[in-house]
């Protein structure tokens, strides 16, 4: 393990930025925008600039899934001349980049996405970005009231990642967990110093104590998992849970693990660009075909999203849930309906204790 004084954090980031494009969480709006925008500003990943102030917020409004699975992405182009067609592969090798300050929940979300995009046949767009990204994660010193990553076996005190960091009042501690991480750490030798392997233990203990006290600390996922389709699919509670749902895509789009997408063509007049974009199973046209849809009502669409996260995905992925407890849907849903409420309602006492 190595460490760097917090006072030298800028130098640490500068050293990182020397090796690849560096993205850090920053506060969204500038003062002028805030003045008009009722003081509200979320945190967003932005390219690091020398001296940049990092956001003090626990996590970013949007999840970092954008870096590997952007909201829209051009995939290929076509040219049509009379009856003749040409296909152009527009893929280029992605530049190297580093994501700094990714929280444990979001790091796990990459594993959830990997299981979809990196299984055969590999999604080359995702694989390209993933291969060139280095994840520097950060333990959550102050988990939020809406956090429940532990429910899904994620340790916010000891995240996964290529390089893992912990912060206390004076130091930032770093350790590499992968080969990519080792490479990055080697480049940071001048701005870090060797320290004992247990140097971050006090931070870990503190984080664990705080995780114990979270309001959602006792939420359990045991009732859910693969093979539970029959247990939950016909539960009448879905009607009540989905009653006020607007059918918007907010939960889907802020979710770090939602990965449904649409493929569309855009004709510029000169060429046709085939691109993909995020889509949501909550939208009424998601499964619409020429002769109708297999999920005509809103209850079904609402149910699909949660069943997928809590039952279908685990069934196909060795029990891994496709929720990481980041709490974004808890704070962003326009009607405050979310996976915690769904789990408590459906899981009954087993989850509500």
């Amino acid at each position, binding site marked *: 393990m190595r460490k760097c004084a917090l006072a030298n954090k800028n130098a640490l980031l500068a050293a990182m930025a020397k090796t690849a494009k560096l993205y850090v969480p920053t506060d969204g709006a500038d003062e002028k925008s805030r003045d008009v925008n009722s003081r509200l500003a979320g945190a967003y990943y932005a390219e690091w600039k020398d001296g940049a102030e990092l956001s003090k917020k626990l996590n970013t409004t949007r999840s970092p899934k954008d870096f590997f699975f952007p909201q829209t992405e051009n995939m290929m182009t076509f040219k049509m001349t009379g009856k003749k067609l040409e296909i152009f592969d527009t893929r280029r090798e992605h530049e190297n980049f580093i994501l700094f300050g990714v929280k444990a929940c979001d790091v796990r979300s990459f594993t959830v996405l990997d299981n979809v995009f990196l299984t055969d046949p590999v*999604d080359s767009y995702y694989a390209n970005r993933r291969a060139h990204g280095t994840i520097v994660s950060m333990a959550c010193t102050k988990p939020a009231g809406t956090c429940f990553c532990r429910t899904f076996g994620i340790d916010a005190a000891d995240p996964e990642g290529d390089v893992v960091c912990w912060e206390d009042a004076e130091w930032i501690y770093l350790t590499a967990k992968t080969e990519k991480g080792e490479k990055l750490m080697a480049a940071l030798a001048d701005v870090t110093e060797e320290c004992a392997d247990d140097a971050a233990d006090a931070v870990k203990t503190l984080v664990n104590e705080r995780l114990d006290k979270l309001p959602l600390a006792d939420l359990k996922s045991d009732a859910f998992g693969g093979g539970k389709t029959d247990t939950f699919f016909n539960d009448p509670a879905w009607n009540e849970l989905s009653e006020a749902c607007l059918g918007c895509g907010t939960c889907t789009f802020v979710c770090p693990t939602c990965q449904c997408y649409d493929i569309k063509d855009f004709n510029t007049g000169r060429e046709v660009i085939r691109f993909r974009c995020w889509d949501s199973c909550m939208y009424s046209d998601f499964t619409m075909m*020429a002769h109708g849809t297999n999920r005509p009502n809103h209850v079904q669409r609402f149910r699909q999203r949660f069943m997928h996260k809590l039952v279908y995905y685990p069934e196909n992925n060795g029990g891994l849930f496709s929720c990481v407890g980041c709490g974004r849907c808890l704070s962003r849903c326009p009607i405050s309906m979310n996976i915690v409420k769904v789990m408590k309602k459906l899981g009954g006492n087993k989850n509500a204790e």
Partner: protein
Amino acid sequence: MLSEFKMPKEALIPVIGEVTDIRIDTPDVKTFRVVTPDGKKAFDHMPGQCAMLSVPGVGEAMFSITSSPTNTEYMEFSIKKCGCVTDWLHQMEVGQQITIRGPYGNAFPVDTAFAGKDMLFIAGGIGLAPLRSVINYCRHYRDRYGKIDIVYGSRSRADLVDYNEILTEWMTDDGINVHLTIDREEEGWDGHVGFVPNYVKELGFSTDKTAILCGPPIMIKFTLAGLQELGFAKEQVYTTLELRMKCGIGKCGRCNVGSKYVCKDGPVFRCDEIDELPDEY
């Protein structure tokens, strides 16, 4: 840049397919013959598998491959006009280039579960499209299968897809019984009149056959019930499901039903497997 990085092959990038023949089957079904620009078959497939065809700027859609894998020269797609992409396909002329990628999905277990069995094919309307591939595969390897019965119905005589092939090839084969039916009486038709599910019951097949159903959902529902009345078990009956698809490789999430993705775990399902899916297909 990572020197060791190698861009993986991308399943979503199609190849060019040239339409070399267009056959008008019914007022709303045409069969398109597709090869690569150098005149070859775009890829190999098994009966029941599908391919994504697209017209850039219009869209991409999944179609079952109608021709048999034993045809090594080209692929055929029987397509009913029913939406943006199919409208466009119906308007195009021979020589048009489109895109094609695949094959997608599982296939009928022609070399395993079907081997040595008496086969009963039941299709309604455009439902013949995916079955034509299996039927011609079975005809090609005739000695691997027992007796073959084909029940095929549509609204009218004009709506029977591949009528000429049925008359000149299927009906003349030894050991193949073709039972045609249309929904309503019409002049010049001296065959059976009535709906497919009822006709299947009337014909009263023995229960040692393996049945394959394909057609509109309502036909599948009643035919399956009819077969069960005759004593067929769900384990003996196969069908195909159709849901909206975009990627074809189990990633975009659209055709997800329960823990299955119709594009990769289907489209072929045994009827007892369908029972295990949540009722959302």
